[in-house]
């Protein structure tokens, strides 16, 4: 909860806000979470989801595109983090789009229609929420690689979809959080998809296993690249943070390498 000391991830994302006066710092930004087979980055999504739905910002809305898990999974995980998704869904703050089974099959028109219809759904939620004076809208895509599979591998269409979603971030001040798997593309010569995604992203979060292998008290390391931090002078610069983490049921511990007691 927010009463606790802010953790390193929040600091790196600029989510630390003592007075609760500033607007949601991730608005109009794209966050890309990359993970690997050995280290899942899903906990970052859960954390951001919980932050976005936290009771302090009761004007926030989350649109969740679930390709990876059913609702019951997220519900149970978030409940242990102290956030009731079922209640939030009833309050119209959490819009869950179950895309586990949906396909956007091959064939030009059909394919585009599938994704276009999906985008239309998102846009409708976003624009109505915007009219209802909701402060910030977060769009979360759990597992972009599965979306690619659902579109039967047509990279262009899913990238178009992503770009459309990105226009929402500038038009309505939404934030867009996308999870993808880095190691899928590491063996491809010119991985257009992941390169474009990294280019589009304002904040890049990488979850990697430790180089020394698995350990019980350190589950991996996070690298947060925050592009274009504006400081007081108005100049912009990149900020990189690197720290270790340990995932627990009710939260995640973050600590600098070697500082775990």
């Amino acid at each position, binding site marked *: 909860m927010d009463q606790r000391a802010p953790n390193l991830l929040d600091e790196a994302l600029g989510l630390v806000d003592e007075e609760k006066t500033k607007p949601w710092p991730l608005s109009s930004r794209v966050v890309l979470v990359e993970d*690997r*087979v*050995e*280290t*899942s980055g*899903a*906990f970052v999504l*859960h954390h951001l989801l919980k932050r976005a739905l936290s009771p302090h910002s009761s004007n926030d809305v989350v649109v969740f595109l679930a390709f990876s*898990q*059913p609702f*019951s*999974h997220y519900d*149970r*995980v978030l409940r*242990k983090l102290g956030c009731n998704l079922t209640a939030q869904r009833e309050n119209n703050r959490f819009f869950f789009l179950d895309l*586990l*089974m949906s*396909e956007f099959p091959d064939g030009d028109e059909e394919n585009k229609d599938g994704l276009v219809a999906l985008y239309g759904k998102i846009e409708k939620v976003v624009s109505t929420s915007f009219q209802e004076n909701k402060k910030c809208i977060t769009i979360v895509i759990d597992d972009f*690689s*599965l979306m690619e*599979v*659902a579109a*039967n*591998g047509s990279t262009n269409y899913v990238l178009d979809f992503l770009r459309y979603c990105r226009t929402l971030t500038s038009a309505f001040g939404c934030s867009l959080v996308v999870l993808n*798997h880095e*190691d*899928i*593309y*590491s*063996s*491809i010569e010119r991985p257009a998809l992941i390169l474009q995604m990294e280019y589009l992203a304002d904040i890049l979060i990488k979850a990697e*296993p430790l*180089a*020394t*292998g*698995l*350990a*019980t008290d350190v*589950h991996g390391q996070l690298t947060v690249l925050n592009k274009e931090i504006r400081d007081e002078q108005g100049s912009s610069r990149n900020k990189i943070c690197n720290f270790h983490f340990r*995932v*627990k*049921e009710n939260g995640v511990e973050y600590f600098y390498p070697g500082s775990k007691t």
Partner: protein
Amino acid sequence: MKPTTSKSTAERGLYPLPIMASPEGALVVLFHMLTFREVALSLLLLLGSLSFLSYWPDVHNLWLAGVAGSREPPPKSESPASTRSTKAKPVNNNIVMATSKPRTSSFSRNLATVPSSTPGLKYGPNGTIFISSGIPDLDKILGGGFPLGSLVMVMEDAEAPHHMLLLRNFMSQGLVHKQPLLYASPSKDPKGFLGTLPTPGSSKDDKSRDRDPENENGLRIAWQYKKYFGDNQYHFDSNRDVKHEYCHDFDLRKPLEKHFISGQHIDCVSILDSPNLAALRDRCATFLAQFPRNDSSISSASRIAIQSFCAPQCKYSNKEWDMVSFIRSLRSMVRSSNAVAVVTFPPSLLSPSFSRRWQHMADTLLSVRAIPDEDKEMAKLLTGYQDMVGLLNVHKVARINTQVPVILDATTFSIKLQKRRFLVLESLNQAPIDSSSGTSYGTSASCSGSSKTGTLDF
């Protein structure tokens, strides 16, 4: 008789509260099937009467006397009735003697003893339900088995049939539990494979397993402690009641008896000649549609086994997007039904990028590898090398309804055949000499698809 309990009763979940004195002085012996809550309640009662009488020192003395007077082992089986008559040993003070079974913590969760109406199902944490993999050791490694709704992928060794060992035991276990099965393989006659399934045998007669219940009769040192053993060892007390066993030991040399196969719901599909995967997807969908997920009551679990999914003799094997799309839909379908799907595939036949995609989709990811017969160097590095038939790697353990990863002590296990019949998994033991190269061997034992092989360089 002695105020101790025999192992069998303790294991069945009886919490004996042998002697309980009411303040009036009458001795009452309680020996019933008590739930934990009842035990807690009666303990509270006991404490209440204790404080009422305030005879603490005497209780202590009596307890010591009871221990000292009970040096000989208790009889193996003891009917509750006889216990009731003999247990009422006169106690001089009108006080209470509590020799009920101490628990490590009153609030510890006793997952293994959650009663299940259906055999072959076990309740796990986070609302998951496990079914057995058919290999007791694998169940233990994975924390209980395969959770319902999960997709298990086994990466094959392209040159050895070790994945078949896992697949056979998985299928046999399902048939023994009368769970419906769908089996797809790239062979011409998949039904014939059912004839090669192993039958449940009992490895209890060989004494190599420690804590053998057969040893109970003999004299043993510190026999009183044996009631603490095997609290969570679900399959050790299983020879008493074969019907409700969660996980069997399978005798790989005997084929499964006919009555397990006949009259059961078994679908066999050959994926050899189908030009695309639509047919297989439909079969899986209709198979799984019979077992929708219903959290309130689980009648039965079903199993899907797909062998060598991307085998090159299949006509669709060059359509990588079709295959990955099938895996995705299979995963989604399994998620919403009471089933577990095990898919084996040779990762070397896929492009590295797609192999990664498949691995990401797996909930539980295993890989098997053969080891060469005569490898002098390895034989030097590992103890018990002669008995090994292969290596099993656990890359990922299913993480359903939780975000916490399961970190195992060891991820590489040796596959051994005990008495050439029973499949056992053991963590690798390095021979004491030359430990540095032993470590590097242990890590490079991960499968070819794993990226860790590259980054680790000792």
